[in-house]
């Protein structure tokens, strides 16, 4: 398989719990530098919970706990000296529904993550905002209304704005949690194209329940079922010749 490429982020026997119930069990998985890895599986298989362990968002939920290790550049992100707030600036995230900040303009939304980092000069912020919007493929549509409300954008544009906001601080890893679940087909296509472009610069992990999407955008795929990692490999191989009968059943539409 693809073990030769350097690994940006990996988990070792990662388990996640809610109030003592296991949502993710013993997942060992690595994400190569500048690649797109899709996490697929039926609803409730723990794929979103797993993703939220990777930037320590999981622990914000009531009764949440984890065991095992998550290593970013071979450093344990759950080590006591790691500040989760700083970690989240290195591991960006985009959610299912677009979440532009309603009190901020388009510009300020993208700048939000930069300003919170501190130390940026005003002129630099403007340049970085433009660059982020360019990379998110939104610049041409919003360049003459940067000071307008982000809420005036369409759903698909809002989601690309959220991508721009997430990549503006230059994270190393980008987590996408079903980023097209609330978009129409046109918006979905744009996000999918964008995901492939982004993998040139970022390590992308995308959770999706859309198998065609996983096949289109990802290089590697991990199949989760009932909180466990069932199968991992090159997307192409998994979709044409799955090893595990459960993977086969899922991707051929027999359950989930």
């Amino acid at each position, binding site marked *: 398989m693809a073990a030769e490429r350097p690994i940006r982020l990996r988990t070792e026997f990662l388990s996640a719990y809610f109030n003592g119930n296991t949502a993710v069990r013993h997942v060992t998985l690595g994400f190569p530098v500048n690649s797109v890895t899709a996490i697929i599986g039926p609803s409730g298989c723990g794929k979103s919970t797993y993703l939220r362990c990777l930037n320590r968002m999981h622990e914000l939920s009531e009764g949440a706990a984890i065991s095992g290790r998550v290593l970013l550049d071979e450093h344990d992100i759950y080590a006591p000296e790691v500040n989760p*707030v700083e970690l*989240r600036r290195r591991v*960006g995230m985009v959610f299912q*529904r677009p979440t532009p*900040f*309603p009190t901020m303009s388009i510009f300020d939304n993208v700048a939000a993550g930069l300003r919170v980092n501190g130390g940026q000069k005003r002129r630099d912020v403007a340049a970085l905002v433009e660059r982020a919007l360019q990379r998110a493929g939104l610049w041409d549509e919003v360049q003459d209304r940067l000071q*307008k409300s982000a809420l005036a954008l369409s759903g698909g544009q809002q989601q690309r704005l*959220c991508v721009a906001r997430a990549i503006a601080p230059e994270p190393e890893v980008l987590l996408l949690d079903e980023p097209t679940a609330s978009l129409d087909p046109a918006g979905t296509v744009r996000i999918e194209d964008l995901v492939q472009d982004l993998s040139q610069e970022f390590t992308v992990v995308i959770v999706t329940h859309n198998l065609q999407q996983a096949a289109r955008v990802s290089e590697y795929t991990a199949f989760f079922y009932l909180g466990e990692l069932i199968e991992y490999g090159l997307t192409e191989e998994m979709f044409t010749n799955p090893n595990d009968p459960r993977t086969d059943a899922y991707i051929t539409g027999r359950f989930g």
Partner: protein
Amino acid sequence: MPGQFRRRLVSRIMTAATVLAAVLAVVPLLLIFGDLVAKGVSSVNWDFFVNSPAAPGEPGGGVANAIVGTLIIVGLGALAGLPVGIGAGIYLAEYGTNRFSWIVRFVADVLNGTPSIVVGIFAWTWMVKPMGHFSALAGGVALALLMIPMVTRTTEEMVRLVPHSLTEAALALGYSRWRTSLGIAVRTAWPGIMTGALVAVARIAGETAPLLFTALGNLNFRLDILQPMQTLSLQIYVYATGPFEEWHRLAWGAALVLMALVLVFGLAARYATRARFSHGR
């Protein structure tokens, strides 16, 4: 089809009933306002605004002292009450899952239901008595005590209404907890918080009972907050219950001014704190 006929009939009746209820809700308000204008407008002229009350029984005189006193005492109440109320509300909304918060919430609800005259007695016991005299400051404290529970609860509600997805997005972006609270949750809820604060200010501006034995009232123009001071509500109370025809006329005028003051203040504050982005711009 009889079923369809019945359904339409019920629909008509229910619609009519809600329209009727809406009319019943608005009519008394319009009557009050109309009455105020009709009876008060004749008293309202330039002299009315720039003069303090004339000696009892004499014609003329105005409410200048009461207008300024209302602004000062309500201002004192808001100055003390709003920061505490808004701060407490933010705390309850953002960190309010512990036992302490439960107690704060319970006390706020009890205070919300406490008759305002009881709050006045409290302020009298703890401020007027130790100081030895009535004062505008004691009145302001009484009004602040009335405001705090109202503002606390409305602020908490407004901050809670901010979608969880927004605060989560901020945290995922590397916002710290307090920055998420203030920069995202409170900022998003701010117009609602201000509306709640306004409602509270408007309500205390009309309070009379807690001022009777704190600010007391004063027929002269005073700016010293350590001395008794007049407010419009106290003036209305004294004039309306007084024996002189001239006083009754001035009471109507004062009532009209009080209502207009609350209205103007409300509109101004709403304009100043309006959401930066109205929908769809």
